[in-house]
């Protein structure tokens, strides 16, 4: 049971990759990529969790009580916000690709294949 978070992370990584590989639409590829990325959140949080620990916010609990690791949480926090803008960048590329090639299917991006 204690392996479950990591198993879910591996599952998300592989299923997201399947989405990327099987995709026939660039927007679909990009959305699948966000699923791949969310698997990293689970690994990081799984590593930093302490059984029965509280969130590391000591506004109303004493500092001696058991708390989870805040370091990995910070990594996830900034990652989520940045991921959104990077996804925006990829979407902008997809829109331009559609402008040029008239299709969102990666198969039709001829210029990239030669």
């Amino acid at each position, binding site marked *: 049971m204690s392996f479950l978070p990591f198993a*879910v992370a591996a599952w998300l990584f592989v*299923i997201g990759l399947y989405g990327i590989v099987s995709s026939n639409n660039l*927007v679909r590829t990009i959305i699948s990529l*966000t*699923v791949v990325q969310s698997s990293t959140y689970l690994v990081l949080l799984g590593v930093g969790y302490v059984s029965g620990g509280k969130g590391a916010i000591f506004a109303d609990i004493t500092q001696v009580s058991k708390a989870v690791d805040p370091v990995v949480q910070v990594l996830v926090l900034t990652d989520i916000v940045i991921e959104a803008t990077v996804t*925006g960048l990829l979407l902008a590329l997809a*829109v331009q690709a559609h402008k040029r090639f008239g299709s969102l299917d990666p198969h039709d991006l001829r210029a990239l294949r030669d």
Partner: protein
Amino acid sequence: MTVLQVAALAAVALGGAAVVVSPDPLRQVIVLGIYGLSLTVLFFVFQNPDVALSEIVVSTVGLPVMVLLALRKVREQERQREEQKQRERG
């Protein structure tokens, strides 16, 4: 590990699969939003309110707005192409 945590993990595992197998991108965006909500719950039950706060805004507003607008632009371009074709024919 508590029951709540197991339930949240199960929801995320199912949600991720649902995002990937949804048939068209438009539907995928909506499922992605729901998947984001399940991730938010997961962060919350894993004692992670800060991350939950950023995930809820990004996944329900931040990403869908961009994806939906990109899809709208693509549809607009397709409509234009159709019109151009018809003009060339007639």
